[in-house]
């Protein structure tokens, strides 16, 4: 079957959804989106019951399998259970943490001599951050310390900090370290027909749509004329009629095995930090023997992630007020060590974490009510965790495996090893966490296993020139005319912040750029819509 569209978007995650929305707003009424994964039933009561009564993971069938990727470096990435291949993408089960990068993050190499600079600066992206926060329905408090410069308030008011975090906040204050309300795409009031967050605590699968998930955006797009979505369809490779122009994409329908093609005037690859470079590598051919946009040899390289580790300790005082964690993510954060002064030695974001009461487990183990209440009153366990910036290194990269993965795309081979500088930075972050926990009155400190945060970026990095990266400042693959990439893959540096709000800001910027390019300068100027 032969398909055609004016614009073909590969990937239905939040980046693809936002680009599509901008294109439709610009009057482009022929947008085709291709998604490798399937729809997931969201906000479904039976599914929700199964999540919290039967511990069933509704996303298990939509994530990577262990056999889909090989780790050949010393610090492995983990895609299984984290990255989703589904309608709406990985934000179906994200925490919603939405911290902007800071101005210094765009000038990492200039400031520190390490990593890479962005070809754009914070000032250029700031208006699009505001759009992104509106799209993601971010709740936050602009008056908190630690924010980069902002042109306006958050679209939704911040949630108050959970009571369980008060010890952390007080210890930070005593130590002279700043804290802020978490910036989170969680509904502090009803929005877009979705409920406010009810703080039920089944955050992995919210029964009421209490935070932004990518399917909500896709559902709104599907109501609009000119938008089509094909799920369960693999984008196998792009084919070029000249070095500059991709003419069609080869597709494979997963269920039927039917091969299809889609001709499009413009292709936008929104397939995340792993699959975006893989598609460009898999599209190697006559005009691009090493992969599309890979004249620099940097396609797939500079694979960068956050280092994440948590220290826990036992408080000294009994928990007579029966205070515990309610949510799967903190409502307080500190960007005190995520600033320009810390950039050279390694910036990190700090969040507290606290245990849940394991009521069901204790009941199933046969404990009486009195035993359980006594257990709840034991001194609680507190934790502090850091999310540390890793500076991009060309020696960390991904490549195509020779065998197909479980859905028929090439397997992913990852080479990632933390640099000695990152190891040293992690050591400094650990020392800070321990200081804070001791100030909180905790003892018996213990660290969990350090790991990467699955914020994979850098693999199609932005650069001014084709010699230095894969895409230009407008996210167009260097030396092509009609292939763009929009994902964390284009980040030259990752900062200490969770990447999604930056991805969405770039998607708004790209969508408006393409709208102007395809429909002329009459496309709307930046206007931030107040959420309904």
């Amino acid at each position, binding site marked *: 079957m032969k398909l055609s569209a004016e614009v073909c978007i590969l990937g239905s995650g939040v980046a693809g959804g936002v680009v599509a929305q901008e294109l439709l707003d610009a009057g482009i009424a022929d947008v085709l989106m291709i998604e490798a994964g399937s729809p997931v039933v969201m906000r479904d009561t*039976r599914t929700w*019951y199964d999540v*919290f*009564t*039967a*511990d069933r993971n509704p996303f298990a069938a939509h994530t990577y399998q262990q056999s889909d990727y090989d780790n050949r470096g010393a610090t492995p990435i983990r895609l299984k*259970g*984290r990255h989703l291949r589904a309608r709406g993408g990985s934000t179906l*089960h*994200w*925490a919603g*943490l939405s911290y902007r990068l800071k101005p210094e993050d765009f000038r990492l190499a200039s400031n520190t001599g390490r990593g890479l600079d962005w070809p754009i600066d914070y000032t250029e992206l700031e208006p699009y951050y505001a759009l992104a926060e509106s799209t993601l329905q971010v709740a936050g408090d602009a008056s908190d310390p630690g924010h980069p410069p902002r042109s306006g308030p958050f679209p939704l008011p911040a949630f108050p900090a959970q009571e369980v975090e008060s010890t952390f906040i007080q210890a930070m204050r005593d130590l002279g370290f700043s804290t802020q309300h978490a910036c989170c795409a969680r509904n502090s009031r009803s929005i877009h027909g979705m409920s406010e967050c*009810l703080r*039920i*605590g089944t955050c*992995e699968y919210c029964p009421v749509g209490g935070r932004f998930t990518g399917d909500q955006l896709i559902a709104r797009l599907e109501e609009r004329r000119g938008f089509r979505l094909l799920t369960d369809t693999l984008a196998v490779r792009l084919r070029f009629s000249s070095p500059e122009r991709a003419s069609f994409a080869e597709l494979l329908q997963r269920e039927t095995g039917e091969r299809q093609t889609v001709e499009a005037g413009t292709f936008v690859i929104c397939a995340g930090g792993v699959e975006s470079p893989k598609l460009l590598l898999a599209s190697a051919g006559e005009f691009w023997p090493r992969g599309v946009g890979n004249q620099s040899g940097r396609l797939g390289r500079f694979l960068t992630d956050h*280092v*994440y*580790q*948590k220290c*826990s300790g*036992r408080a000294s005082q009994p928990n007579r007020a*029966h205070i515990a*964690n*309610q949510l799967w*993510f903190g409502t307080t954060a500190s960007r005190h060590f995520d600033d320009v002064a810390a950039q050279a030695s390694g910036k990190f974001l700090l969040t507290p*974490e*606290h*245990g*849940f*009461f*394991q*009521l*069901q*487990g*204790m*009941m*199933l*183990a*046969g*404990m009486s*009510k009195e035993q*359980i*209440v006594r*257990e*709840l009153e034991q*001194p609680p*366990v507190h934790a502090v*965790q850091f999310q540390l910036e890793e500076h991009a290194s060309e020696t960390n990269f991904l490549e195509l495996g020779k065998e197909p993965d479980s859905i028929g795309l090439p397997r992913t081979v990852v080479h990632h090893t933390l640099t000695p500088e990152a190891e040293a930075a992690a050591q400094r972050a*650990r020392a800070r966490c321990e200081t804070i926990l001791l100030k909180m009155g905790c003892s018996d400190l*213990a*660290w*969990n*296993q*350090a*790991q990467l*945060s*699955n*914020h994979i970026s850098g693999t199609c990095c932005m650069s001014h020139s084709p010699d230095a990266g894969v895409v230009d400042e407008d996210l167009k693959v260097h030396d092509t005319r009609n292939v763009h990439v929009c994902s964390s893959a284009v980040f030259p540096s990752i900062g200490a912040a*969770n990447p999604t709000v930056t991805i969405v800001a770039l998607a708004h910027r790209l969508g408006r750029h393409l709208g102007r390019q395809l429909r002329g300068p009459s496309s709307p100027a930046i206007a931030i819509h107040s959420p309904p």
Partner: protein
Amino acid sequence: MLASGGAGLGLMGYALRRGGRAPKPTGVLAGGPRPSPFPADPGSLSQTEKQLLWQLAVATGAPWNLSELSEKEFLGFLELKTQSPPSYLAEYRNALEVFASACREQSPPEAVVSILRHAGRERAAEHARDFVIGEFIALHLATGGFRQFGLTRFRAYVGEGYRASPVQPGRLR
């Protein structure tokens, strides 16, 4: 490589790290793979079966004074659990047999505790504990039962207590 430690805030580890008093986990709680429910096509329970399951649910809450679950909400739960896949019809019928057998020599709440304590010995009782009584406990807690344990400051509470295995750090970020 980075330094590492073994301590997390996992299901039983949370309690164990605070003095080692938590009982040894068994069955699903041991963290092994959860078995599949007994196979059954979607279908409806009889009125009698629904009433007996409501009695089992009431008995399940009784040892901890959990009584905030309404019959209406419970019946809605049963309907969803039986009429769409995976259907729990066979699980519920199995649990009713296990419960009836346990009730021959003791009160219904005592029967529930007995099933919880001795379920590991046979498959039918193990399924009754893991797929029915354990899930009814979660339902009791989520519908307000958490307040019985002094968690009066919360509007709602499910937390992580329902998980067979600890939440992987970084899973939600």
